């Protein structure tokens, strides 16, 4: 990913350098670069549509007996944090609604547990609006992580300045840029619940923030937290597949809404034919999405698609 861009830039730089200095300078530069070669591993963990499933599903549940549960995700994340130096934990929305935890405590337990798990960021899903903008605002004090919402304009509502448009996380010398794309609320959420929230075009907004993060902020990787949904029968409906194909500068889309189980991230092509990854982790805290990225300044640039997986069961269905 980004191979071409890197090579072009190097060629450009070498041309200039070569144009006016002796070979000696060039070889010393190479020597310096070799010395500085270092690989950094960043582990991205993510959830979506946890729907208040603090505890595992009931042992008698027809589809997911004794599976899932945020408390189990918490222990897995804890194990991974012990092994990996740089971990980023993200959520793609619909934290609320689905078990009595939400009906009784209104989201307090979900946000508190996610804070204790040290989530780095989340975006809002349609069900996070189930108790209205007030329902979100009242719970925000329990969340020690930010909500990244790039295409909801809350400026005319009580959520003004309560969410952010993008976030940059620095791990070692790697800058990770994150922005969030929400689903169109009209027809999905009652107007009384979202009031004067303005919905901005998902593709235009995504291109804007992806460019800003990649080019201006010089992030090594740009992640979009999306609650658009993976894919629809209606080809034109806004989805992660369409988002991938209509944008550039995004490296990874972490999706939600369609409760899609994937064994691993899938590779698509973006607007300019570059590879982009899309991943989603089912729902109900039944899956934890995981991607390990290796960053290096080495000369040899090769994208190594390691699709190794220890799955025995085909789990990719909606």
């Amino acid at each position: 990913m980004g191979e071409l861009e890197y090579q072009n830039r190097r060629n450009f730089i070498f041309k200039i350098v070569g144009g006016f200095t002796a070979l000696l300078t060039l070889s010393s530069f190479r020597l310096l670069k070799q010395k500085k070669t270092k690989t950094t591993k960043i582990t991205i963990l993510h959830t979506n549509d946890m729907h208040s499933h603090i505890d595992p599903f009931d042992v008698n549940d027809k589809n997911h007996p004794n599976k899932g549960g945020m408390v189990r995700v918490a222990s897995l994340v804890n194990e991974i944090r012990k092994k990996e130096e740089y971990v980023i934990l993200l959520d793609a929305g619909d934290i609320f609604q689905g078990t009595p935890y939400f009906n009784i405590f209104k989201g307090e337990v979900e946000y508190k547990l996610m804070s204790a798990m040290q989530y780095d960021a989340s975006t809002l899903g349609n069900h996070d609006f189930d108790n209205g903008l007030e329902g979100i605002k009242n719970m925000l004090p329990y969340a020690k992580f930010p909500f990244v919402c790039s295409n909801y304009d809350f400026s005319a509502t009580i959520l003004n300045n309560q969410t952010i448009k993008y976030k940059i996380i620095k791990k070692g010398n790697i800058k990770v840029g994150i922005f969030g794309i929400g689903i169109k609320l009209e027809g999905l959420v009652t107007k009384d619940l979202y009031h004067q929230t303005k919905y901005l075009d998902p593709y235009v907004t995504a291109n804007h923030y992806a460019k800003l993060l990649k080019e201006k902020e010089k992030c090594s990787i740009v992640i979009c937290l999306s609650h658009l949904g993976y894919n629809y029968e209606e080809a034109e409906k806004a989805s992660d597949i369409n988002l991938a194909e209509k944008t550039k500068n995004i490296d990874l889309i972490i999706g939600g809404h369609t409760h899609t189980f994937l064994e691993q991230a899938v590779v698509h092509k973006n607007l300019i034919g570059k590879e982009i990854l899309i991943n989603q982790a089912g729902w109900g805290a039944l899956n934890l999405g995981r991607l390990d990225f290796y960053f290096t300044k080495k000369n040899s640039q090769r994208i190594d698609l390691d699709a190794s997986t220890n799955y025995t069961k085909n789990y990719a269905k909606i």
Partner: protein
Amino acid sequence: MKNNLNTNPLLLLIITLLSCNSTNKVTSYNSSNHLIDKNLSTVNYSELDLSDYRLEMSNQMNEIINVSAIEMETGSPEGVLGNFICDLSLFTCISILDIPSDFCILNNGGFRTSLPKGRVSKGKIFEIMPFDNELVVLELNGEQMIDLINYIKEKSLINHSRKAGVPVSGIRISIVGNEISRVFIGIEEFDTTKTYKVVTTDYLAKGGDNMTFFKNAKKISSTGLLLRDAIINYIENLSNQNIKLNAQLDGRIRVSE
């Protein structure tokens, strides 16, 4: 400018190295999503103590409110769970709340899980109907009714999606091929010159799940009763009479070639 650069090769080298520092690129990645299953500990490794929340939850939710004779699921063109909940909603409006009503329409997307056979806890009803949706009664004219009937037809002809089928009570629709054959409201054939009183939820009444035919409908009554509470009250009442929960498919929406 060029001349200027030529005189400062060292400066350019430094700039070059600095810019290299900011161009860390992904060279490889692995992706393998984890299943969250029973091999993982439920002991919460975070610093949050959930015991007080759990105690409060179990006090409220673990109460067994009745026993179901069968497992109830949603379905298309008809599902037992949808029939059960629509029947009790219509019954509640007419017989408990005393609001004249002709039929009921809800949506399968609103039923979030199935009702298991055997003991039914209050918490299970919260899982089936987690939303705080209120029962309302609206009045529809002939034109709006035709839109509603066509909406049911379209959703009844698909049966693969979890959003297929429309749960109803008090209305019977026969679909032959792709066409509506006959429609009965109660025991009378549908009459486009009449208005009908329909029980639904405030969510659907505002056009939720694309029920656009409700958008300009006249509102007759806000019941002030949540659908979930109507379900719990009905189930508890049956329990007081020692009646187990039961329901069946009865061909209220019938699709034939």
